[in-house]
């Protein structure tokens, strides 16, 4: 019985591996296309509570003219939803498709951007623009292979460069300023994040059929099937319901 199960798992692995190889070759051989679209929020945008930063005079002063508020739903003109990450959830090509180094800034005691998407193994940089000490503390699940760490960044600190080993949505926080929360969305393959109007474009997608997944914090996901052809961008619009 045991031996039988073992062989079943092995053959499953081999099958998945072969499929990955086959698909990988298929997509790598072709030219490049893209996937674009708009993500909207259906319904009235929920009220985002203001943040009391009076604990740290530096932070409250930085927000004197524009008070800070939660960023769970950031909705632009026409209901466009910001901070949605779009990626190809059945991607079988190489993991790191970009050599760009995304930047995660601690600015006015908030995270800019609030959601940072990146590829498995892609280097990203944590910087601070603030004259107050932060600690940058991502909280992945160590069982995935991503290991939590916790580093301080006092005023003027040098950037911290890191990368993640596995696909995961990782919450980030600062213990000194408990209102600071952000997300690292680690995916495999090409990705994009919606802008202030909810628009996005996933670049460098070889022709083929894919499943596009749209992620919104904390764990809402939607998928759509698209077919990308050379020279003709595929379109995929999404709508999230206001909660």
């Amino acid at each position, binding site marked *: 019985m045991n031996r*039988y*199960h073992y062989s*079943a*798992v092995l*053959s*499953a*692995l081999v*099958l*998945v591996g072969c499929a990955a190889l086959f698909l990988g070759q298929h997509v790598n051989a072709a030219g490049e296309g893209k996937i674009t679209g708009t993500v909207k929020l259906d319904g009235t945008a929920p009220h985002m509570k203001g943040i009391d930063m009076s*604990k*740290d*005079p530096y932070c409250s002063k930085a927000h004197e003219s524009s008070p800070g508020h939660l960023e769970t739903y950031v909705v632009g003109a026409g209901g466009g939803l910001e901070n949605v990450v779009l990626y190809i959830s059945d991607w079988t090509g190489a993991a790191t498709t970009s050599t760009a180094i995304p930047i995660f800034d601690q600015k006015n005691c908030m995270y800019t951007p609030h959601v940072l998407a990146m590829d498995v193994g892609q280097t990203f940089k944590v910087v601070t623009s603030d*004259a*107050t*000490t932060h*600690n*940058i*503390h991502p*909280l992945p*699940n*160590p*069982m*995935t*292979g991503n*290991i*939590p*760490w*916790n*580093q*301080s*960044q*006092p*005023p003027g*600190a*040098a950037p*911290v460069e890191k990368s993640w080993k*596995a*696909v*995961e949505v990782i919450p980030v926080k600062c*213990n*000194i*300023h*408990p209102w600071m929360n952000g997300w690292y969305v680690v995916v495999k393959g090409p990705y994009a994040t919606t802008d202030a109007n909810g628009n996005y474009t996933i670049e460098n997608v070889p022709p083929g059929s894919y499943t596009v997944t749209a992620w919104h914090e904390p764990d809402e996901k939607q998928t759509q099937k698209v077919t990308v052809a050379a020279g003709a961008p595929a379109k995929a619009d999404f709508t999230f319901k206001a909660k």
Partner: protein
Amino acid sequence: MRTRLQTWSLLMSATAVLALPMTSFAQLTQADFETRINMESHIGNLTGHAKDAKADYRRYCVSCHGDNGDGNGESFPWVDPKPRDFQLGIFKCRSTPTGTLPTDQDLFDTIARGLDRSNMPQWSTFTKQERADLVAWVKHFSPRWVNEKPGTPITIPPEPEVTAERIKAGRDVFARVQCWKCHGVLGQANGPSAATLQDDLGRPIAAYNFTEGSRPKCGDTNRDIYRIFMTGLDGTPMPSFADNIKPDEAWDLVFYLRTLMRQNSKEKSMAKQLGLKPVDPNAPAGQQ
């Protein structure tokens, strides 16, 4: 020829394999631990064997740390700080950088020392061999000890002579990296951020109070204190300052921290002579 049962079981196994990375904070089972029962620890000339620690663990450790090493033993509801979850492989007292596994020696020392202000007593009743075996047993609960190597211990330069200049310089470091945000300007654990601190599992946690006379959690020597802020206490809000405090400055900070502690020390009397004032969080940077 493949029977329907075979196809079914093949599909299920494939699903299981694919779903593996998506499970959150996986609860491992005895079967997982059994695969790591030959785990060893190496402390100096000693080799610890996990399987030799089974009886000791069941007798002395299981009530807090639990059958599955997840810190969910039957005493869990009654103790605070909560018992360590060995499955996660995250430890406070390490000689290694933040985000890495501790060395076997680190775990060996923690068992002997115990953890002040917690329910973890000193286990000096165990022989060294028994402690080494327990270290191996602790490791056999987490797959991380198979997939990863412990971090490289940080380098600590020899301790310099304490001088008035060094104590004053340590006060500047305390002001610059803003230790007072949590620990308070007098080290009384009453800084502006102290009240909202949480550990990695979202449970309330207190900053260390230097003035109440308890020993620092990870040991009471100057080297132990040096190590705390240069490695961070993983799983807690205490970050690593390794990138922002130079080794020489780190010694200055150790000397200044001694002046905040209730216990008498050379540093404390020197600070008194100097008339050293606590840092002023409202003064502009550089004049605190």
